[in-house]
């Protein structure tokens, strides 16, 4: 199955090394986490609840700050420079567990808002692109509805299309299927799988969907206590992990 995946290139899209993060209340959430992601690569991050997975990927688009270590996204080093943060956010899309669609805008407006406002693109052109994207995630007929009128699976597909409409170089997914009813998980995973296979999109996915990780990921990563504990190709990760904590984690979810 993974033979259908495009091989990643050598170009490094995300380079995080030795990242430490303390939350304002003093909690030490990231303890020297490191990860590098190549262009076209799909990396799945797994790990027990509270291990810092969300915190880690949220540092990649500066939704969270960090106190030590370095993160470079497509050659731009993350610092506190606001203009650089804006530049990085334009290149990095993010899909959330709770979808976070804008409920007061129609599906189509959810997609066109940022390209028109941020990239200053022509509205008609963006609308055409948005409709094409909705077609691709199989919800073209819902364009004029409001998010609250869609099912969870449909909403998450809209959220993916919304990110794609900004034409990002990297997509981050934070448990994109955890809030969905089981029968809707598939339709969302299929969209993500197509993205990886057909577009060669660079993706970092926090998920506990083992099948998705086996079939789509180039690498699977285990986080625990704010650190990256193990990195391995999926065949190895699931059958013969080298680390004791990985085995303990897999025993719980498999």
């Amino acid at each position: 199955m993974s033979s259908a995946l495009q091989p990643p290139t050598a170009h490094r899209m995300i380079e995080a090394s030795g990242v430490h993060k303390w939350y304002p209340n003093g909690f030490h959430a990231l303890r020297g986490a490191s990860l590098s992601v190549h262009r076209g690569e799909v990396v799945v991050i797994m790990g027990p609840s509270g291990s810092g997975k969300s915190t880690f990927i949220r540092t990649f688009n500066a939704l969270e700050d960090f106190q030590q270590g370095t993160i470079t996204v497509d050659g731009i080093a993350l610092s506190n420079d606001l203009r650089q943060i804006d530049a990085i956010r334009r290149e990095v899309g993010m899909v959330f567990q709770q979808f976070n669609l804008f409920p007061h805008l129609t599906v189509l407006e959810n997609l066109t808002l940022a390209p028109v406002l941020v990239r200053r693109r022509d509205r008609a052109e963006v609308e055409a692109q948005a409709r094409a994207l909705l077609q691709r995630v199989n919800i073209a007929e819902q364009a004029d509805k409001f998010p609250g009128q869609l099912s969870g699976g449909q909403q998450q597909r809209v959220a993916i299309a919304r990110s794609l409409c900004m034409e990002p170089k990297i997509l981050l997914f934070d448990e994109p299927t955890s809030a969905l009813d089981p029968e809707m998980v598939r339709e969302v995973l299929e969209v993500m799988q197509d993205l990886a296979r057909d577009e060669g999109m660079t993706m970092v996915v926090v998920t506990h969907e083992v099948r998705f990780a086996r079939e789509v990921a180039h690498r699977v990563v285990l986080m625990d206590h704010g650190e990256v504990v193990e990195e391995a190709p999926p065949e190895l990760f699931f059958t013969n992990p080298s680390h004791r904590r990985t085995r303990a984690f897999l025993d719980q979810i498999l």
Partner: protein
Amino acid sequence: MRAELFGSPGNSALTLALLAALGSAAFGLLHWGLVQARWAVVRANSTLFAVGRYPQEQQWRLWLLTALLAAAAGLAWGLLRSHPRRDRGGDLWPQNDWIAVGLLAAIALAVPWWLRLDPLIQGRWWGITALLLLVRWAAGHWGRRLPARVLALLPLLWPLLYLVGMLLINGGLGLLPVPPGDWGGLLLTLIAASFAILLCFPLGVLLALGRRSDLPLLRWGSVLYIEFIRGAPLITLLFLGQNMIGFLLPGGLAPDRVWRAAWVLTFFAAAYLAEAVRAGLVAIPPGQLEAARSLGLTIPQALRTVVLPQALRVALPTMVGQFISLLQDTTMLSLVGLMELMGTARTVMANPAFLGRNAEVYLTLAVLFWCCCAALGLGSRALERRLDPNPAS
């Protein structure tokens, strides 16, 4: 219904007793209003109640403004109906609109007649009502051809009209100036209330955002302001404003007494509005701002297009409640000697010719205020329905 009202002997007795009480109260009021009351006090002073001592030969400006307002109202009404929401659709002429048209026509016919207004003035009211309905019809009929982009500019109509209105009322640019001291009655009430409503809105939003800001100085400044204003009774602030603004500003710059009071009203209402907006902001999940930020929107862009539209919709009922109490609070201006509706009423009642006719005057005032507040309430409910992304039906 029947089972609820007459289910048991106890219920039946209670229902009958309440009906009797209601009936006798209604009869008493009708009898008083039609037989005992002497409405001459209202009829003879209708101009005073409407505009105070605004000079007669300049009143055409107020008629012009009223006509403009009626046309604008008709325009907004018709355009909103001709551009129903794309996801829901809607009639060009729903049943509610026919009821509204009927009510408007009835009021326009009955009230001038009942007040025994001059036939000329009566005709003007009919003309203005006809204008409103005509524009409503025309905007509904041809509005569909206007692109939605034009519709988005509609809210700007009101601040713009306010400026035009102030020019007409105040004079200047070739029009004879009419000093604020000559404004009175309903005119002054509406000027003060609309000034405060228009200005306290942006001020309140800024204060609410300031209260949630990361910058400590801004945050504490906003908190201090809001809590101070909310802790002080309006009447003390009004007196304070009359006495203090003169000291604070150099000689000629201090605004007229009317404007001092209007500013105090604005600053007062802004603090309450800020709290309503804050409640709206709190109700918006943080994920909304995060999603907007991760799409590359700057914070001002995210606030303007994502957070505030939702927060203001949540806050809308509370905000309109504030606007309604603001309208009623204008009666306090009479206590610092201004001749708005309440002040006018007090001078009229002090006139020996109308001694003992207080009930008629107060009832008229109550009905006038009720009409204004009901209009605000109806408008806000229509807006709420239009902005609701998840209607029950």
